[in-house]
């Protein structure tokens, strides 16, 4: 098949899955217990790696830029750079990439092995809609938890930057926090929360689609997992650009 055609049909399948999940949101039965369990798994489970990523990203941002700021005698402003780049870009994107690696792969593997061992068929045969029972709880969990994880990563990133500033460059903590505060605007915060909602949707729907469309036994499960992570990561990065542009337009972000 022509690769463009294949791409379009994949896109159609993912959108269709998302749409079906969306529709089933409004009617019974609802699987609250499954949703809570997924939230725990996605949120609490991913917290350590996301915090670690955030912390060191903030730290390295300051490490790499402090001396340049110093050269222009603007070292008191260095917290601004950490804050803006973390909250606008690196917090949402890096958290999404970490979550896509950890959760996207787990979702694709779990659903994929359920397909090849006929558990999905069994579920349908027993009268349960797998989209309600499996897909919706996962997407909801990702959409709810992604912004929270991102905020946590942002906060740890700012702490990381502050730690480098005060421990390695002996900057006053108050100077750093002041420059951080001037660097953050309301629309930055808003954008930094809107983005991860979309990233959660992307990761959830791509991973569920890849898992559910698994074929070809255990080898197929491996393929689905790889595809889920690669495709959702790429989509996060591509989508991030267009989302940034849109948010710039809507919220007036990025103009100083």
């Amino acid at each position, binding site marked *: 098949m022509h690769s463009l055609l294949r791409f379009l049909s994949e896109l159609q399948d993912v959108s269709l899955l998302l749409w079906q999940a969306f529709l089933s949101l409004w009617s019974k*039965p609802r699987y609250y217990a499954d949703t809570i369990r997924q939230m725990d798994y996605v949120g609490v489970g991913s917290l350590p790696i996301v915090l670690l990523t955030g912390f060191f990203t903030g730290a390295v941002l300051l490490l790499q830029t402090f001396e340049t700021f110093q050269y222009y005698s603007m070292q008191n402003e260095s917290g601004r750079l950490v804050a803006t780049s973390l909250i606008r870009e690196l917090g949402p994107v890096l958290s999404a990439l970490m979550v896509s690696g950890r959760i996207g792969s787990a979702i694709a593997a779990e659903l994929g*092995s*359920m397909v090849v*061992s*006929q*558990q999905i*068929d*069994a*579920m*349908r*045969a*027993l*009268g*349960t*809609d797998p989209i309600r029972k499996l897909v919706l709880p996962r997407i909801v969990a990702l959409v709810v938890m992604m912004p929270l994880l991102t905020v946590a990563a942002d906060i740890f990133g700012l702490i990381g930057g502050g730690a480098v500033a005060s421990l390695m460059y002996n900057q006053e903590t108050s100077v750093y926090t002041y420059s951080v505060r001037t660097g953050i605007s309301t629309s930055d915060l808003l954008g930094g929360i809107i983005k991860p909602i979309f990233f959660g949707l992307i990761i959830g729907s791509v991973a569920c689609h890849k898992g559910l469309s698994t074929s070809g036994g255990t080898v197929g499960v491996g393929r689905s997992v790889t595809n889920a992570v690669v495709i959702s990561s790429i989509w996060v990065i591509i989508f991030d650009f267009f989302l940034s542009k849109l948010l710039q337009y809507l919220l007036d972000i990025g103009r100083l």
Partner: protein
Amino acid sequence: MLSSNENDTYAERGIDEVEASAPEFDDAVDAPDRMRPAIEFRDVHLAFDDKVILDGVSFSVKKGQTKIVLGRSGSGKSTIIRMILGLLKPDAGQIFIDGEEITHHSEPDMMSVRQKIGMVFQEGALFDSLSVYDNVAYRLLEQGVPEDEIDVEVRRMLRFVDLEDAIEKMPNELSGGMRRRVGIARALVGDPQIVLFDEPTAGLDPPTARTICELAIKLRDLQDVSSIFVTHEMNNLRYLSSEYATVNDEGQVVYEKEGEKLCLINTEIMMIRDGQIIFSGKDEELQRNDDPYIRRFIHGT
């Protein structure tokens, strides 16, 4: 209806059970409820891309009847079963469950039909993340049945398959035969009147395979369940088509051989090849058949 070339060949050879079973399609309309088939396929076609899987398949399973489906792997046996459950839709033709046409049922409509059907999957298909209890209870939990009723029903079902001890276990702690039996218990919860077995004995040791056949016989003879039993093991075929279950004076279930004069009327065999039914009839007719393909399949020569 069944007028493919191959069927004609068998008719010429004097084996006309294929034709003989055809009139029941016509009777079905005004016959009493008892005569209405539990499952009926009318000229069903299916192809994946350009690979034809089913090419005009028609058959019916009467109430209380067991249909044994034979055929090489890849001949479309599981496909037929998936269609009965509405997991797969035919390209053409009609499918009836209990007289209700389900060919074009949407997924929500299909849910109520599936309540009548129990399905035993090839490898058991137990939910890995749920205990044996929760697997067997699954359908009842979904229906919101009270917990104490579920408990009674789950224990009754596990007793039926002789696995009461395993109730707390997880599927990965079970042997292949136990998994299959839990799968049967799960399928039988709610006493479905139709039960589908997809190679339930594949890869099991002979005694366990025998136990599973006995369960199928018990359902057929004592509970009046209609079933489809997919297999390619000749032992299964022999048990199912020559033994019957009765309850003896002490109230125990015993299995007896059909003997010389008696012939089991509630078990039929159908064989699929290249997307078509090449044989349909009783065990005795199958044994007497002299088509080389069928003979090789049955006798290995």
